[in-house]
């Protein structure tokens, strides 16, 4: 289909100021255009709600860690078999399995079935990047990109220790370019390397990581600056120290202050917004974090909402997963990866009868409801950590429907909720336009994706069309139509086509003088040849970088 006119729908396109306006959307050759000839084919969307395709800024869907998680969960997969869809586009449909960490094809089909058309994998070990590209090749429909892990990289730490900051920046550029990544990710800065050295806790931002001048603070500063200096479309993407620990709000706010004035994205903030004290008390500090973000326009975040039910915690933050393994007694994977990063995996169930899970659920909702700028605090569950992406529709209902939310709040464990803003009552209900912001327009802006997240002329024709329903969970779980680059992938609620998605990545430049030093380092310590490190044969054109 090369041309299509969508008529009669209410358009929620906050990037272009449309809030339920009824007008035509014209599509030609995969993009949105200003107009079409009168005889162009028509899709009647009268009475329906139209938004850009959803964009997941932070999920774990295509990575060596994800496949380690898949391998760990045969029992989940057995319980959720996914038959091949009946496709009409001639591509051979694939079966798969679901659960919290679905197989690749099923991941693509299910995201598209929810009206999501772009997904970023948030944590890829650079050395495993070629696996991520291959997994994305097997994840149909969605456009995919990933963030590559740099906060615990031995070579980077050495450059910081030697105060070779130019080389640190060049190295970051080389890693991005070699892996075909989109952005720099920092997980528990310094803390993963310390875990490998059997140091299990990062107490302050100034704890030494090996060398005395390599600290979480320096790692954050150097990588935030590198992302800015390289002109990356997305700033450094930060998973703070001390995830999931009572009292970690101190570290979170200190990390934000350390980068004050510099663009930075703080991810799954729910897991980092706890007051109290380890082993003693635990309460919500969402208000403090929301207030900081509200008053600092250079900061963006996503929530990492916890949803009750099964999840799989799956992170580069190996240390925290050991704690979870010992506290839950559930099975556990740790993988220490090639002087670069780590990985920990533990299946987990968030129960509304459990005090901590209930607190986490409340903290996430408070971050949503106390944030004044939805453009800068967007939706995520840190899939599959806080819950599956399949729970997004229910999360949207919690945000849009106070009665539903308050009813649910009554049923959760109240032990740690005293004094929390949500327990005290928050009247706010998200509007459709605010939902469009936190699920499309906001992520697109945070990611610097100028062709996505909106419905203006020139945008990719990634479009989701919903039937209205008083039950917002129902409305958002079964879109009537989904278009991906102009192709109708979902028709009348059924997946009908599964074109390959595109890859979203950058190729920043670096000073070649890096290579001599890096070559020596590889020669001395690496178990892989430098020449074999870069991923070759990247398809699709890279996104531009450079000074704004």
């Amino acid at each position, binding site marked *: 289909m090369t041309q299509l006119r969508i008529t009669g729908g209410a358009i929620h396109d906050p990037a272009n100021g449309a809030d339920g306006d009824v007008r035509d959307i014209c599509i030609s050759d995969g993009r949105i255009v200003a107009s079409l000839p009168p005889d162009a084919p028509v899709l009647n969307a009268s009475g329906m709600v139209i938004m850009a395709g959803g964009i997941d800024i932070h999920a774990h869907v295509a990575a*060596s860690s*994800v*496949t380690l998680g*898949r*391998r*760990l*969960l*045969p029992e*989940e*997969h*057995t319980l959720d*078999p*996914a*038959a*091949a869809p009946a496709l009409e586009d001639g591509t*051979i449909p*694939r*079966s*798969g*399995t679901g*659960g919290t960490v*679905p*197989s*690749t*094809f099923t991941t693509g089909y299910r995201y598209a079935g929810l009206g999501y058309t772009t997904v970023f994998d948030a944590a890829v070990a650079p*050395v*495993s990047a*070629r*696996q991520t590209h*291959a*997994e994305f090749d*097997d994840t149909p429909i969605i456009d995919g990109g990933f963030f590559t892990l740099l906060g615990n990289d*031995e070579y980077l730490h050495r450059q910081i220790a030697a105060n070779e900051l130019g080389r640190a920046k060049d190295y970051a550029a080389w890693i991005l370019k070699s892996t075909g990544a989109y952005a720099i990710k920092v997980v528990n800065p310094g803390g993963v390397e310390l*875990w*490998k*050295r*059997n140091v299990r806790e990062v107490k302050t931002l100034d704890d030494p990581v090996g060398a005395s001048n390599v600290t979480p603070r320096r790692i954050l500063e150097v990588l935030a600056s590198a992302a800015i200096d390289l002109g990356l479309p997305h700033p450094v993407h930060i998973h703070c120290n001390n995830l999931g620990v009572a009292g970690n709000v101190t570290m979170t706010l200190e990390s934000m202050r350390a980068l004050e004035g510099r663009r930075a994205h703080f991810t799954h903030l729910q897991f980092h917004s706890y007051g109290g004290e380890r082993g003693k008390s635990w309460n919500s500090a969402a208000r403090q974090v929301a207030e900081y973000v509200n008053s600092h326009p250079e900061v963006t975040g996503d929530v990492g909402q916890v949803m009750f039910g099964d999840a799989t915690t799956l992170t580069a933050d190996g240390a925290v997963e*050991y704690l979870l*393994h*010992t506290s839950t007694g559930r*099975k*556990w*994977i*740790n*993988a*220490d*990866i*090639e*002087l670069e990063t780590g990985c920990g*995996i*533990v299946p987990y169930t968030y129960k509304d009868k459990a005090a901590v899970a209930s607190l986490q659920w409340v903290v996430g909702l408070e971050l949503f409801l106390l944030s004044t700028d939805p453009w800068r605090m967007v939706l995520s569950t840190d899939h599959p950590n806080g819950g599956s992406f399949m729970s997004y529709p229910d999360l949207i209902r919690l945000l849009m429907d106070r009665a539903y939310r308050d009813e649910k709040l009554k049923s959760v464990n109240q032990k740690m909720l005293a004094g929390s803003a949500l327990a005290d009552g928050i009247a706010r209900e998200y509007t459709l336009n605010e939902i469009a912001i936190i699920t499309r327009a906001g992520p697109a802006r945070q990611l610097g994706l100028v062709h996505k997240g909106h419905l203006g002329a020139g945008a990719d024709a990634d479009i989701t069309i919903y039937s209205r329903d008083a039950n917002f969970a129902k409305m958002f779980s079964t879109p009537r139509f989904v278009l991906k680059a102009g192709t109708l992938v979902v028709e009348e609620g059924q997946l009908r086509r599964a074109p390959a998605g595109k890859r979203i990545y950058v190729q920043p430049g670096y000073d070649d003088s890096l290579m001599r030093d890096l070559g020596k380092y590889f020669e*001395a*310590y*690496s*178990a*892989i*040849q430098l*020449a*074999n490190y870069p991923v*070759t044969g990247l398809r699709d054109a890279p996104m531009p970088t450079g000074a704004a």
Partner: protein
Amino acid sequence: MSGAARIEENATCLGCGCACDDIAVVIDGGRITEARNACALGVRWFGDGSLPGAVLGGRTAAIEDALGEIATMLRAARAPLVYLAPDLTSEAQRAAIAVADQLRAFLDSFTSSTAGEGILAAQRRGRASATLGEIRNRADVIVFWAVDPAASYPRFQSRYAPIPVGIHLPNGRKDRTVIAVDVGGQRGPDDADVRIQMTAEEEPLFLASLRASLAGRTMGDAPIVARVTELATRLNRAKYAVIVTDAESPPSVPNGRADALIALSQSLNATTRGSLCTLRAGGNRNGADTTLTWQTGFPMAVDFSRGVPRYQPEDATLPRLARGAIDAALVVGAASAIPENVVKALGGVRTAVIGPRASESAISASIRIDTGVAGIHESGIAFRLDDLPLPLRALLPTPRDTASLLKALGTAIAAQGARA
């Protein structure tokens, strides 16, 4: 060396799971004449690169006809098997899985009849693991548990550990303690610093006692406890302990070793840091497990017969063949590397082989199509024994690319319509 000789640097060797990627392959006159840096096993694996290029058994020698006949045979079968043999790129593995899905076939690999026990144990418990680069740079205590890598993984010790200098081991071998655990006839390296011996019968109790000891308890009688205490003390003093085991040589009588070693390596992390390193043989075995997992959610023994992947590790290739539950088979990859008992069990089943030297295979196949060897004639990805992906480059032309051929087979199957 003639004037036409060229050297392909940084080739990845799939002779074993070490996947050394520093091989300089010398090619002269269209033949491999040298594989520099490779061990004896690697040199054998590279060979001279010559391959047959036949299409045998079809009504004509045309590849389209042969594929059409394979498609017809598989579609007509009640319970077809697609079997992944070694020496496939992960691209070819993925294409073969797609064919099995499309056919609603049973899909399996060599893993189920070799390393399956360890995979099942890791699905019950998880695992504590480290990539080989971590082991090289961090491991100060290395326990070779009933394995001497010299025989089947010849460069493991010189390239990964214990010999190389590492960031935290500036003096290389001198900074490390190597412990050989001999279990019956399965011996650790001769030049170990410490040697601990046990009979095969003692092993389960020894492992249980060792875990107890790490948890501060005593278990077993005095002779075992003495040996256990020595090992536990050394493990507890380690900064980073690695236990190395060979997934391809399980105990002759199953005794829970794989499960116990996983539990042991995990429990090391209560006090210090530790990992289990599981050795795997060559030909991109980890790639089969990995690609199958990302496509289906399961690493081996996947039954698509109901239109969805079902995990059947207790009813894998061998028992199915033995009870006549498979009536046609497609073997993909190096048929010569398939376990003997699988080859034998395939006798009497209508079989097609697509892979390197298919035309020379001992399997009595109706149709055989020669392709190339992953990493010698075909480009793509292979996974090292620690699950890291490495690039493969074609050093010589392939008779026909396996992945492309399997995709064409998928198209041929689709053209014939859904299976009855």
